[in-house]
């Protein structure tokens, strides 16, 4: 959350090849790639060759969200965010509004919890630099909480009958704790009036509407029994309480009471009842809401927005949120000479002027990490505070743009990317496209991580991305000569092409070495082998070997023939298959029937003709050894045929 004007981070690149200029390309999120050279002005203008090794440099900058304490906040608020989006689909009307308010309070509680954490860390760290860093975070987090809570009152909470002052007073009490602290200190004193802070504290309490405490302090004064003190205490005690409006009495009723009470204050003041004690007179002038007195006590209600609320309290306690801006100018003028208006002031100003867009716009530059604006805008969006007609792109896109920005900074983090995914899920317009691009860039360090990213893709029906992840992992396995593992990846993505390639690799290995590898996988393929014909063939062929070695010759023979007939086998593998038939033919027991033998002969014929054609065409043919084997096979087949006919005939005759 670096404040824009203060922190301009610099990073020196000492590389002589950059003397002619430096170019840059954006990476993902907080990342920039730099390389030497300058933008050619003309298309034919070439970069001067430096003759040196030019390097591409990756520049990354940390944002405070990556700091351990704030990372906790990222994760904590992520839950709130997702829950709110869920509620948005289920609830409507008042129930949903209550939920929005709850979420807002929850976000603030999160900020407060981590403020406390930071505070503890400032207390425990010894490293001065780190302490400074923590202080900086603390300051910004404080400001963000301050703005958030004001926005909550003005835009989300929308109090009963449009009354804002009671809420604003609570806000003052929470964020301007000096009055309360001074009060506590004074209460411990034996003679509080002797302290220089005595009257200041009373002013502060009155200005914050903490009447009860002010009365208690006044009653400790040694002159408390005098008439003027008694009158004032009496007036204070009878001040109509705004909170009663919530308890059932109407605004009009309150207004009437208030006017009566203020007339009484005014009368007492005009009757010069407090002229002996100027401090008492100041208090009563505040009660009367006299314009001039606020400038006199401006040190007690610094800064301007404090004064604004104090003024509103005594001048127009039932003011509506939209009318607060009438007070702004006067209050700011009171402080103009002493302080320059900062970024915080302008955000609060916009908030009090009900200019939601300006609040968002300014906050975005102050809190550069995107956390604040993304979440606040989301809340305001759900509240219906963002009217689409006021923005060129519509309110949805305003929210979405900020969410995308926040998600982007998360996606560029080593570990927090997984949180970013959820935020992208809730960007209806561009979220998916962004996610697809980001997912492509997450390094797949381990199978486990690949599995996790795969799950993200599968949940969102991103078949292309899922397939590409499996392909990357599978190819990696192939490179590492882990064909079994590779197959599991391709089976997972149902990648027919690569499954076929692998099956062929296995078959090649077999025909080269005469032995199968990865048997533990192939033997258990089950129905998955049906993915690709080649894989089915591999599985079945392996089954044939198993049957053969188990002595199930008939079944083995049937399977072998079936493989040939179904034409699952690649042609170049037919020879191997036919030769595999040889031992079966040579058994004393008859394995192949006459019909089957004829089929085998047909296959052999087909193969030899094809090879003959092939030989004529491109000179390829069988090796001598193969020829011999085929001759033996031919012989065996022709021997088997009469044997089979004979046996079948015998059976028939019998």
């Amino acid at each position: 959350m670096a404040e824009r004007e203060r922190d301009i981070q610099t990073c020196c690149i000492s590389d002589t090849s950059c003397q002619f200029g430096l170019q840059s390309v954006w990476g993902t999120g907080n990342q920039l790639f730099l390389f030497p050279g300058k933008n050619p002005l003309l298309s034919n203008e070439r970069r001067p060759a430096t003759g040196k090794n030019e390097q591409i440099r990756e520049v990354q900058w940390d944002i405070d969200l990556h700091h351990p304490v704030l990372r906790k906040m990222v994760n904590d608020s992520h839950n709130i965010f997702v829950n709110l989006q869920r509620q948005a689909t289920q609830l409507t009307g008042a129930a949903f509004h209550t939920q929005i308010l709850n979420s807002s309070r929850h976000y603030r509680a999160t900020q407060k919890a981590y403020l406390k954490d930071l505070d503890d860390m400032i207390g425990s760290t010894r490293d001065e630099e780190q302490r400074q860093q923590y202080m900086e975070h603390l300051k910004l987090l404080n400001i963000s909480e301050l703005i958030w809570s004001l926005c909550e009152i003005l835009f989300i909470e929308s109090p009963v009958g449009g009354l804002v002052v009671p809420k604003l007073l609570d806000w003052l009490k929470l964020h301007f704790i000096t009055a309360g602290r001074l009060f506590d200190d004074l209460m411990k004193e034996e003679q509080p009036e002797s302290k220089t802070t005595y009257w200041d504290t009373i002013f502060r309490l009155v200005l914050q509407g903490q009447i009860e405490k002010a009365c208690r302090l006044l009653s400790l004064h040694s002159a408390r029994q005098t008439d003027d003190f008694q009158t004032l205490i009496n007036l204070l005690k009878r001040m109509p309480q705004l909170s009663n409006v919530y308890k059932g009495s109407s605004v009009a009723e309150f207004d009437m009471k208030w006017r009566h009470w203020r007339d009484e204050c005014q009368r007492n003041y005009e009757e010069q009842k407090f002229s002996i004690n100027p401090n008492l007179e100041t208090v009563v002038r505040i009660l009367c809401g006299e314009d001039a007195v606020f400038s006199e006590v401006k040190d007690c209600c610094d800064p301007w927005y404090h004064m604004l609320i104090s003024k509103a309290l005594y001048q127009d306690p039932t003011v509506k949120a939209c009318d607060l801006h009438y007070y702004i100018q006067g209050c700011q003028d009171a402080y103009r000479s002493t302080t320059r208006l900062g970024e915080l002031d302008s955000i609060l100003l916009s908030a009090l002027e009900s200019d939601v867009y300006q609040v968002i716009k300014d906050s975005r530059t102050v809190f550069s990490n995107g956390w604040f604006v993304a979440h606040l805008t989301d809340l305001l969006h759900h509240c219906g505070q963002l009217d689409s007609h006021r923005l060129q792109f519509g309110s949805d896109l305003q929210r979405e743009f900020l969410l995308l920005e926040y998600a982007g900074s998360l996606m560029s983090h080593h570990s927090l990317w997984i949180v970013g995914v959820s935020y992208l899920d809730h960007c209806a317009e561009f979220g998916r496209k962004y996610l697809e691009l980001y997912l492509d860039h997450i390094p797949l360090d381990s199978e486990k991580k690949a599995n996790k990213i795969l799950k993200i893709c599968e949940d969102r029906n991103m078949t292309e991305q899922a397939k590409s992840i499996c392909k990357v992992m599978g190819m990696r396995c192939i490179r590492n000569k882990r064909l079994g593992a590779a197959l599991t990846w391709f089976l997972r993505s149902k990648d027919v092409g690569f499954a076929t390639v692998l099956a062929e690799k296995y078959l090649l290995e077999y025909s080269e070495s005469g032995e199968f590898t990865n048997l533990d996988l192939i033997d258990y393929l089950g129905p998955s082998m049906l993915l690709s014909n080649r894989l089915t063939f591999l599985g079945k062929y392996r089954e044939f070997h198993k049957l053969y070695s188990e002595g199930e010759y008939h079944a083995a023979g049937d399977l072998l023939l079936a493989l040939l007939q179904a034409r699952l086998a690649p042609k170049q593998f037919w020879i191997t298959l036919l030769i595999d038939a040889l031992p079966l033919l040579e058994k004393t027991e008859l394995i192949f029937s006459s019909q089957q033998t004829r089929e085998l002969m047909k296959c052999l014929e087909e193969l030899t003709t094809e090879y003959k054609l092939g030989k004529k065409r491109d000179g390829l043919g069988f090796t001598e050894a193969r020829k011999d084997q085929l001759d033996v096979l031919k012989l065996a087949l022709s021997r088997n045929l009469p044997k089979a006919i004979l046996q079948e005939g015998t059976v028939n005759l019998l």
Partner: protein
Amino acid sequence: MADSIQSFVKFVSRKISKIKWQPSQKQTLECSDTFVTGSWDDEKNKICLWHLGMQESMERDEMDDALEPALKCEADHNGDVTGLEYVGSDVIVASSSTGSVALYKHHTSSQTMGIQYKWQCLHSHGNHLCPCTCLAVRDKTIVTAGEDGKMVVLSAEQKSPQRIIENADSSTINGLVFLRHTEVISVNSSGQLKTYDLRSSSDAPAQTLSVSGELTSLHSVDRHPGQPHIVATGSGDGVLGIWDLRQEKSPVSLLEAHNGPVWEVKFHKTNSDHLFTCSEDGAVWHWDSSLVGASHMVQTQITGTGAGSGGANFSVNPSFQFGGSETLNKWLSPDNSKMEINSLIDDNILPVNSVDIESQTLLCGTDSESIITIRLPSMR
């Protein structure tokens, strides 16, 4: 259930891949109050040791505090922590995605932790290293497996590996657990469960069992504490498998559970009728089989245990009753419909990578950079 489930979420600024209770001391009956976590997917990963307020004799209103873990000490870890186990009471072994395995010693006097020994390059493809995926420990023997399909047997007291099973598996071994002293069970990404006898001279598995049907990967495995032939596995498609190593070639039952890979399954060490699973879908489920086969009355028959995401379907605690044989172990009962299943953390969104249970306190390590401690009501 008489008392409710209480939980505490502690954010720790690192994604947790493994979480493990320190084994309770055999001499004392007291439960352990220390556990260790390992992180993953960060620039700097860490092994952290945590302290949890005493498990026993806790006042109810103090419960919330008692469930908040406090950091005792931490040590840097190179690469993702892929496996984490205790070897004895103050030595921890951790496997890494860089292919190495390291022993960490917890110095109780100074409350610090440091590397005692590191086996480098245990797993590799030729020259370049590959992740070690899991490990299992029994006494001083450590077995690790990697994406290279290798299995390595180490002794905590010996620098060189005792044995390397070069081609243990064609696919990746994702989980290991000891079956007996010299036998380990492995599960792999092609849906197989194998047992290896470490004494045997052959590298081939002693037994291979497999999930039939479509190829699915198995990610986690645990063995029943009392009857080691009963094994539970968690698969890539969210199914909990129960296996009987004595007879079957395929699982006894497959229970459709989570909506994503089941990263860990864990039997309760002393109440073995209870089992816990955690998953990529962000849920942690408590499987209670104590009522299975308890009654012979058949009340309702509902076939299948299909569950939707997040365990929503089980929030009403289905209490179906089936007849069953008392002699058969509850997990092997053919009718598992009387199983009670509870989803423990409903509001969690991101994946839960690891769970461990000791007595009544369940620990979960998640990808939302948090440790969730859950206090369960007493178990039957």
